[in-house]
């Protein structure tokens, strides 16, 4: 947990903090952080993070770009918003972590991990059908680890799946989907295009 600490013999990217302030959703509020540690102390899953949110925010200020963007902090965040409601300085901690996760993928820092694989499977369903088909998202996610691991994860969860099927909470027919899939596709493509345009300006 304590591994990367600022090291005077290394060069840090001091423009990184500014980049985060300007480009990460909620990042403009990061300057308000007073390092009290309430966020990390409140986090239900903090012990599984490389660095709690407080420390990660200090590392951002210190310009530790590589360590921040390759940390597993944002991938463990469950989006429970406890840090957000407790932060005495109203820093939108969860939103910042969520967008850092997206940015770490975009910039090629995040190695494929469970969360990024799951997110991709999820988005695939939302984009393709307009709805989350829990069954297909889960299957696609399991098999994103390869066939052997996919089958293993499937078998591990067979009892759960059977319970869901018996109670009618998992259907076996066509995916649920919206009617205007073409419209949604056009909206999402346009939104991606605008985002690209804005990030360059």
């Amino acid at each position, binding site marked *: 947990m304590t591994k990367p600490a600022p090291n005077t013999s290394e060069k840090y990217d001091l423009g990184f903090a500014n980049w985060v302030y300007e480009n990460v959703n909620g990042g403009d509020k990061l300057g308000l952080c007073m390092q009290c540690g309430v966020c990390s102390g409140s986090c239900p899953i903090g012990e599984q993070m490389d660095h709690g949110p407080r420390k990660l925010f200090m590392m951002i200020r210190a310009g530790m770009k590589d360590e921040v963007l390759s940390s597993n902090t944002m991938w463990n965040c469950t989006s429970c918003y406890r840090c957000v409601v407790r932060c005495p300085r109203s820093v939108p901690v969860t939103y910042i972590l969520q967008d850092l996760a997206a940015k770490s993928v975009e910039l090629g820092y995040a190695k494929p991990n*469970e969360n990024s694989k799951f997110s991709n499977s999820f988005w695939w369903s939302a984009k393709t059908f307009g709805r989350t088909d829990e069954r297909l998202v889960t299957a696609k996610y399991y098999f994103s680890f390869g066939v052997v691991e996919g089958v293993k994860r499937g078998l591990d969860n067979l009892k759960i799946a059977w319970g869901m099927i018996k109670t009618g909470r998992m259907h076996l027919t066509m995916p649920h989907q919206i009617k205007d899939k073409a419209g949604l596709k056009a909206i999402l493509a346009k939104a991606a295009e605008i985002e690209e345009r804005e990030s360059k300006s």
Partner: protein
Amino acid sequence: MSEKKKFTYYPGCSSQGSALHLDESLRAIAPSLDIELEDIEDWNCCGASVGHIGGGQLPNLSLTGRNLAKAQERGKQDVVTGCAACYLNTHAGNEKIKNDVNVRAQVNEALSAADMEYDEDLQVRHMCEVIVNDVGLDKVREKVTNPLTGLKVAGYVGCQTVRPFAGTDGGGNYDTYDNPEFLDNFAEACGAEAVEYNPKTSCCGGSVAVMSPDRTLHLIKTIVEDAVEAGADVIATPCPLCQTNVEMYQDAINKKYGTDFHIPVMFYSQLMAVAFGLDGEKDAALHRNTIRSEKLEKMAK
């Protein structure tokens, strides 16, 4: 409120899958509460807590934009959803769009690709907040014809129903985010007994529990264990993901920790349906729980 109040209803993806019983029981109790629900036509996914990673911020927000544009076609009445994640995303997205002209312009530019536009200032609300603020507990009490006498309920609120918006004007100021009482009040209004329960707003692991149960089983264990120790017959929750996670992982917890948990996890709306004297299967959807509550089923009509 004695006249019917109309809402535009956003069921969310889980309403067609894992949380079918939330949707069924909400639709069943709505008339008793004088609520009329009219679905958003052709609604889409809200993006949940991971959409921005796979899709990016603006595409993810455009999912909400499309839902709001579709909701606007129904009129200016408030939008309501029973799902915690749908509420969080749609409410947060709506506020962002309403408060930032640039964001609204970008979302509308994206929506224009399908000839759609969101130019209203709708309100997005959570069903529990509507029940507290618009319907009122008195009305709930008044509708109870089949009190759940003797049923002990652990009110497990979870995170996203109350965090981060419960204590804000936009979130309806209906309760606090750290010690909410509305769920206990619902249970008691139905004639049940709300037990002392500490992990009310503890996190079940959310989508991390779905993708990597090993990282979060200890969180769910506390939620279950405290309910059992408090003598609860059932855990009640408003959140689709909490309901599924806390129900489906009890076996895995038993295996990992050598425990023997087997406690039903119900939606508050299922309890209300039973207490209102509605049908146990068709309305309360009690058959949809993988861990069933015999005690509640015996009480049901």
